[in-house]
């Protein structure tokens, strides 16, 4: 009983001593999170390069608040925007500096420990960044630098084999689709216009077809979208495909479903030709 009172006394004294420090730390955290958002940091990290990037990634995150959970979505978007693994590792490591908590740390562990620990963060972040990048690049595999001649040679070899492979496949598919078309009781040729490849229309149509008893053949994209207009918008591409079925049952239903799918994806049907 006496011991538990002692426990309570110690806890209360420590709490009372630190109370206003804790409260001020809460305000520091709030202010820093409102004024310095991780997004601003990442925008800056994206702009700098080379040693400056390391210098930035190993120091500035020390002042950030937030928990690890909130950092990962940010570092993911950093990586997608092209930041190197090293910079991201340094960024995450430096973030453990926790500057808003420094008053609290100093209260319980002393200023000497606090300052040394915080300063040590910088070299730690740089070393983890550099070593981690070396390891990850080996492990994940980055594009290997090869001299141009050799690359050209390899590319020709690869290209030839790919063409051969595609030829075989195309001929096979071609024969099958010819057979399907000639055997079919009902065929409609669709011509459509829109963001066909971006919206994955071929796959969506194939999925639809696989649920029912009809086939979609001879899918051709007539104008692949490689062109960009001056305002950055893509030109829509055109595609053709033929719906074939062996029985005339439910044909109108199938057609409606296809039209709906195209409609949902903002694809225009240019023509529907029965033959």
């Amino acid at each position, binding site marked *: 009983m006496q*011991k538990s009172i*002692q*426990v309570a*006394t*110690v*806890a*209360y004294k*420590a*709490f009372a*001593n*630190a*109370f*206003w*420090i*804790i*409260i*001020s*730390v*809460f*305000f*520091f*955290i*709030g*202010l820093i*999170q*409102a*004024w310095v958002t991780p997004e601003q940091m990442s925008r800056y990290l994206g702009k700098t390069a080379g040693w400056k990037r390391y210098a930035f990634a190993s120091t500035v995150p020390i002042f950030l608040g937030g928990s*690890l*959970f909130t950092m*990962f*979505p940010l*570092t*993911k978007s950093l*990586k997608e925007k092209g930041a190197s*693994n090293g910079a*991201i*590792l340094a960024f*995450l*490591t430096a973030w*453990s500096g*926790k500057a808003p*908590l420094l*008053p*609290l*740390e100093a*209260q*319980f*562990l002393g200023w*000497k*420990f606090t300052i*040394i*620990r915080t300063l*040590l963060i910088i070299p*730690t972040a740089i070393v*983890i960044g550099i*070593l*981690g990048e070396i390891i*990850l690049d080996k*492990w*994940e595999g980055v594009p290997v630098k090869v001299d141009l001649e050799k690359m050209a040679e390899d590319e020709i070899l690869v290209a030839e084999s790919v063409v051969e492979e595609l030829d075989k496949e195309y001929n096979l598919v071609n024969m099958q689709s010819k057979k399907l078309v000639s055997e079919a009781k009902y065929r409609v040729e669709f011509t459509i216009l829109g963001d066909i490849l971006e919206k994955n229309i071929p796959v969506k149509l194939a999925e639809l077809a696989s649920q029912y008893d009809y086939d979609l053949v001879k899918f051709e994209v007539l104008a692949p979208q490689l062109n960009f207009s001056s305002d950055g918008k893509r030109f829509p591409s055109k595609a053709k495909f033929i719906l074939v079925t062996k029985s005339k049952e439910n044909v109108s239903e199938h057609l409606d479903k296809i039209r709906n799918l195209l409609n949902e994806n903002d694809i225009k049907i240019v023509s529907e030709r029965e033959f």
Partner: protein
Amino acid sequence: MNAYIGYIYLATAAVLVFISYIKDKNKTRKALITTGKVALNVLPVLFFIFILMGIIQIFVTKDLVARWLGASSGIWGILIGEIVGAVALIEPAAVFPFSGALIAKGASYAVIYAFASTAVLIGMATLPAEIAFMGKKFTIVRNILSFVMIFLIALLWRFIM
């Protein structure tokens, strides 16, 4: 001195909030909301941490702490500190009071450095999120490298403090 330092921080915080309010009311509102949220999250944890501090102070003997976490504990003490820090689900704000209690009982700064560093940098609880966002390889490399680096630096603390 110790009694006043809290008021100095509080005054600093008040001045900063005031400046912030003059510059941008909206951001200040956000800041105060964050402050409230953090306080609500952290204060209950701190309550238990301070009780824990009391328990350590009263029930745990200096010999015990010195043997396991003191300067003579060597690499094992550092490893214990690191592993506890990595496994424990602990708020960063709660790390320091808890560490302070251990220091008072004779834990070495090297061990406390190891514990405090892994507590913020490595988290068993955050591993799934890290794998989901950054990938398995990144997660493994980051956590193991951090663990090793913290261990090596902790060895140096003997010469620092």
